């Protein structure tokens, strides 16, 4: 491992020289590689880092704003080329469908792991000491209840389009809760912010990496650990007649793109496949942008200068 690091560093230095000098490797195609931008900071950071790395490799890059799921239309036709964050937890279905057409390809993991689960702010624990164990939820239904849901507790779920099987989970685990779906990410966290300011109880879907994790103190509910059998086999788990009697899967965040990238820009293709970043690194950058108000470009530039060795190796 050590030696490969040294080699990487050397290669990085060479790559840098090449960037500085004129004898830089020509990209296979001068056409711009189009990366999609969505509307959350983590994804903007990931995409901008990739774009900067590709630029260092001599590629022309264009950043295009696109909706998270609607972008597959563009990826299939090659109108846009790379999406840097496709979450196992929310994008799997669309991604599988697109890959099945043969026009979209999975470029591997980003190195970040997506976590999605029921979550509550730390101050709720006073009112409901049994948490984070899921079996305490039914005792606390009145804590989380609102006028519309009473006597049931209220759980604010993700937009319907994100899936997540929460309605099924409530039924399978016999939870005395009503699932209310937020329409968007923004609405979801608007409610959290509002409740947090008032120190009011709230139980909702939170995902990581996200700034809410950093800004608000709280915990995930501990459901029985997810296994694939739990979702596919009703016999599994505490409820013998229903699937989904467990927590949500955790999974990688994928990179996906147009299948033609491999042939058109082989070097870039390899760099994108090699891209790798950890949850902690990402969390720190998201916090810098969303909570401390740092400029996104500056945060990305800092990362680039601190990690030259790493990204140079991707470009080989």
């Amino acid at each position, binding site marked *: 491992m050590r030696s490969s690091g040294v080699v990487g560093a050397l290669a990085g230095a060479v790559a840098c020289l090449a960037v500085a000098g004129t004898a830089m490797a020509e990209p296979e195609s*001068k*056409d*711009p590689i189009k990366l999609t931008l969505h*509307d*959350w*900071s983590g994804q*903007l950071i990931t995409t901008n880092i990739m774009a900067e790395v590709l*630029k260092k490799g*001599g*590629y*022309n*890059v264009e950043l*295009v*704003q*696109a*909706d*998270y*799921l*609607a*972008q*597959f*239309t*563009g990826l299939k*036709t090659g*109108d*846009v080329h790379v999406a840097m964050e496709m979450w196992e937890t929310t994008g799997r279905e*669309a991604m599988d469908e697109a890959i099945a057409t043969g026009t979209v390809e999975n470029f591997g993991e980003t190195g970040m792991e997506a976590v999605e689960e029921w979550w509550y702010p730390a101050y709720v624990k006073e009112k409901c000491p049994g948490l984070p164990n899921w079996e305490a939820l039914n005792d606390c239904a009145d804590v989380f209840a*609102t*006028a*519309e849901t009473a006597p049931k507790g209220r759980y*604010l779920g993700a*937009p*319907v*389009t994100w899936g997540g099987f929460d309605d099924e989970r409530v039924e399978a685990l016999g939870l005395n809760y009503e699932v*209310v*779906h*937020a*329409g*968007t*990410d*923004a*609405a*979801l*966290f*608007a*409610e959290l*912010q*509002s409740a947090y*300011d*008032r120190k*009011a109880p709230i139980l909702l879907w939170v995902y990581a990496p996200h*700034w809410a994790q950093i800004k608000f103190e709280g915990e995930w509910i501990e459901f029985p650990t997810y296994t694939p059998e739990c979702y596919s086999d009703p016999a599994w788990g505490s409820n013998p007649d229903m699937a989904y009697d467990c927590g949500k899967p955790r999974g990688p965040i994928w990179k996906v793109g147009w299948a033609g990238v491999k042939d058109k820009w082989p070097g870039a293709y390899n760099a994108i496949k090699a891209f790798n970043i950890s949850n902690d690194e990402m969390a720190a950058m998201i916090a810098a942008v*969303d909570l401390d108000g740092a400029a996104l470009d500056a945060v990305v530039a800092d990362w680039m200068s601190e990690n030259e060795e790493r990204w140079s190796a991707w470009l080989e």
Partner: protein
Amino acid sequence: MTIAGRRLTPWAAFWLAAAIASFFLAAHGASMTAAIDAGWAMQYPAAWRWPLNAQISAAMKWLVEEVHFHFFTFTEMTRGLAWLLKQPYDFIRSLLVGGFVRGLGRDAVQLLPSLSWLAVVFIVAAMGYYARSWRLALLVAGCFLYLAVFGKWNSAMVTLSSILIAVPLGVVGGLLLGIAGYRWRTFDRVLTPALDLMQTVPIFAYLVPILFLFGFGPVSALIATVIYAMPPMVRVTTLALRAVPSEIRDFAVMVGCSRRQMTWKVLVPAATPSLMVGVNQVIMLSLNMVIIASMIGAGGLGFEVLSSLRRLDIGAGLEAGIAIVVLAIALDRLSQAFAQRSGYRHSESSNYLTRHPWLVTTALVVLGTGLAGLFVPALQDYPASATVTTAPFWSDLVRSINIAFFDQFEAAKVFMLVNILMPVKRFMLALPWPWLVLLATIAGWQLGGWRLATLCLGLSVFIAVNGLWELAMVTIYLCGISVAIAAMIGIPLGILATENAHAQRIVGAVIDTLQTLPSFVYLIPVVMLFRVGDFAAMIAVILYALAPAVRYTAHGIRNIDPQLIEAGIVSGCTRRQLLWRIKMPLAMPEIMLGINQTIMLALSMLVITALVGTRDLGQEVYIALTKADVGRGLVAGAAIAFIAIIADRLISAGAARTRQRLGLA
């Protein structure tokens, strides 16, 4: 206003009976239908569904993948069109932001910088002065300075570039279609329903097909914008040309105009003032689309709004939203001033410089600031260090309101939910669908004869056979309550606006802002104060749909023949009697049209409220969008459009009858 004093007309008796029957059916319909084994009347059986979804999706696939016109495929044709549109867009965008560049990426060489912010401000101010006065010049320059000072310049210029392409396209396209509709009756007959659909099918429903055909990016956003913004121009054109006085037409015939001369030299110029109303609508509607356009790659201010709110940076979202409003104000006032500018003022001077003082000065400023900008960057790009923001103030404001008043809001909300929203929703969902189809058909027959009856029958059955009945009922419930409340607030406001000029100005400014401010900006604070759910959605719908109720009421009252009011005063009416006995009844047809427009806006807002988790047709369209399901989106979109069309036709027919009864027609 009591019924006791009057005899019931047969129709009134019928509707009273129908209402009683509805309550009975809502309470016992389920058990009755179960007893006679007619469960299909309560819930439309899945097995009877028309597989229109899948058929449309298949047709789309065939269009994109198979259709071939000998030399090129259908997709190649649409992509070619997209390329054509992209050229002027790229040019304007480079001109306003980014500059002209040759080559790409590292090899890029900047040929020309973009217009400096000073130059743009000067140009719009010069246009303002040229078109009207110093006051307008100051207003417009102030609007653009806001963009610079609040750090929204680059985003605003990106948005402005798409507007500068979309508006001329919408205006010219609308003008040509309108002229065609004026010339050929048959064309008009095809055009009218098409326009209805363009205006009422939610944009989300046709975004996916547009993305398939025209590719991802600003051009698709442009096309969606034009589709959405063009219909008023077409309608206004046809109406304006028909309204040209026949004397003018006769005169043109007498002097021997050809048909082409007649259209372009006589009719269009004579109708220009009315046509400008259409232009104004195109500008406003194009700016309404900014947020949605940014979801498919247009970027600009819409993207700033979305990403700010995603960070829950309410203040930044508001500032970006106001930037859109400010842009709308500037463009609207400029276009109006140009329209009202009377004739050409030819200068006698033969010298080019003195004949075109404005053109020359502007050119000098553009060149001067461009050159100076090479040396002093602050003249080229507004310095980031000099921008200001009020964002923290707004976030703190919402936060303190939230902490101080949440309980009061909550109490009001719970009262509304328990006593109004929930019972109405339950009632709507408990009614058997054939019963409602029957009532809609009878209403059509009463107000507009068998034609309207057939229309109502056909459209409502379409909703049922596509399995969308339940979602449609939730839609009608949410819109119905919102419209009722909007009318209760809007009509008094409209009356207030006619009472004195001061109130008129304030009310006008508020409703104009509410209409151009992207609804997403206030949706998130509403969620913070009222939680996700139908109530938050209802408030957002009311805020957005309020404007026409106010405007049409004010318009209706102002247009009452002053002699009638005079007569009322002379015969000793109190103010109260004057309002209730004279003004309100006479303004009623206009007020009804205002309510009609309120319904249209409320329906168009549903797609946005889907973002706070309503479970209606809007959500269905939104889900279809995220799943790129062409058929599902278009069918649900058509269902929304059909509800709108039924409401529109019934109310228009009702308003026409009322007008006739009052002898106003």
